[in-house]
Every structure is written in C-alpha cells, then in structure tokens.
C-alpha cells in the first residue's frame, strides 16, 4: 500500500487515488502525420527508476496532480501540481 501525498489534502492511502499514466505528455497539433499521432496515443516510457506520473485524488478532492515515483522501490520523491515541472517541485 502506497502513502501518496496529494498536493492539496496531504498524505492519504493509495485506495483514495486512481492512476493516470505518464505525466507531461503534450498533445500534438491535429495535423501531424499518423506515426506521430500513434506515438502520442500509444507509446509511453517504461523506466526502471524515477517516473513522473499523473494521479487523481478520486475519493478526496477529485483533483489531478503529479508525483515522481521510483518504479523499482515505490519511493515517491515528489508530489506537485500539474502546472509545475518535476524539476522545480519540492
């Protein structure tokens, strides 16, 4: 069981959250070629180590936020607002 820090509500149990996949995926312009569009839709990083990902506090404040989670150890090193980048979040 993970203890996840919602940037608004504080630390809560994993069961209050839903996972939203990799963070910081920019939507391309609609006129890109099919290969780029397919990469945007289907291709995601799968690192063994720190990974920036989206979560939503679905049973709490219902807000989306990002965390940096180590996929090997489950250590969560950062929790930050979607408007921030993983580098400038504390």
């Amino acid at each position, binding site marked *: 069981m993970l203890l996840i820090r919602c940037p*608004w*509500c*504080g*630390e*809560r*149990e994993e*069961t*209050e959250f839903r996972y939203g996949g990799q963070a910081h995926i920019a939507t391309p312009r609609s006129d890109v070629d099919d290969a780029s569009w397919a990469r945007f839709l289907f291709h995601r990083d799968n690192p063994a180590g720190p990974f920036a990902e989206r979560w939503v506090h679905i*049973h*709490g*404040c*219902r*807000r989306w936020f990002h965390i940096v989670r180590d996929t090997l150890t489950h250590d969560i090193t950062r929790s930050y607002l979607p408007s921030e980048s993983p580098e400038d979040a504390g």
Partner: protein
Amino acid sequence: MADSEGMAVRLQSLPQATQVGFRVTLASQMSAANALGIPALPGVNRFIGAGGLLVLWLGPDEWLLIAPDGMVEWESRLRNAIGADQGAVVDVSANRVGFELSGPAARDVLASCCALDLHPRAFGPGGCGQTLIAKAQVILAQTDLETYRILVRPSFANYVAAWLEDGVAGVQGHAKADL
C-alpha cells in the same frame, strides 16, 4: 435507521439538511464568507461551524454548506454574493445523508473501517476530509473531541451504517471483555 445505544459509542442518523456546494474564485471568497456570516472560508481539511451552519472545505476552490432545512434561501444568497462569473453554486441537498458517531470510542470505531489518520496529532475538532469508509466515499468532519459527522451518498448509507454498526459491536464487545 435504528440507533445503536452503548456505553462507549453511539451511532445515529441526522435529520435531512440543506446542502449547497459552491466553487468560488479567490476574488469572491470574502464575499461568500460574508454572506455566510463567517470571518473567512475554512482552509485546507478544515470546517467552520457557526450559527447552526457548517461550512466544509472540499477542495482548493470548493466548499460545502450544510444548514438547517428551510430557514434561508442559501443557494440564491450565495449566488448573489459570489457573482455570475466568479464561481458556481449548486443545491445538493439530496446528495448525501448524515450520520453522527459519538462517544469515547468513536475514533476506535472509525479505525475499523477508515484509513484516514484521526489521531489528535493529525486530526481533531474542526478537521474534515473526504475519504473512504470501507469502499464508500464519505465526507468526515470531527465536530468535537468525541463526535464525528459522516456524510454519505444515500445509496451507500446502509452499507456504511452496517460497517459502523459492526465497529460499534466490536468496541462494545471489547468493553464487556474488559470487565
């Protein structure tokens, strides 16, 4: 729903109340607070009880007002105070029903079904949060040292009550065993 009478803890259902959910920009939060007669809207994970009203923090720009039924037109009063382009006000009176869990063992009962940290170092009177009781989403507010108010969607009410009654039975079982 039957009340559970016991030495250490008591569970009862609360009468129907007016509930108004509102979201409001920073610019209009003061006028919303004025309309409710409170100095400021409550901050993160807090609620304010004043003059029979309860104002609960639900999210970074979102609050819930609970008021006695039929006294004041809170929805229109809040809407006028907030202004058309500064937020949203919705009557959600039928959205949730209320329970009150009180007594020295109330926190032990909640510990049987709710993962929120209710220890005094993390929570206390004036604290509120949206969390889970078993698998049902609830709004939990601690109104005094030994009293919690639980708001749950009506279709989950029997389920949550069953979990709480089970917790009450467990606490009372322990109490008897201690004698």
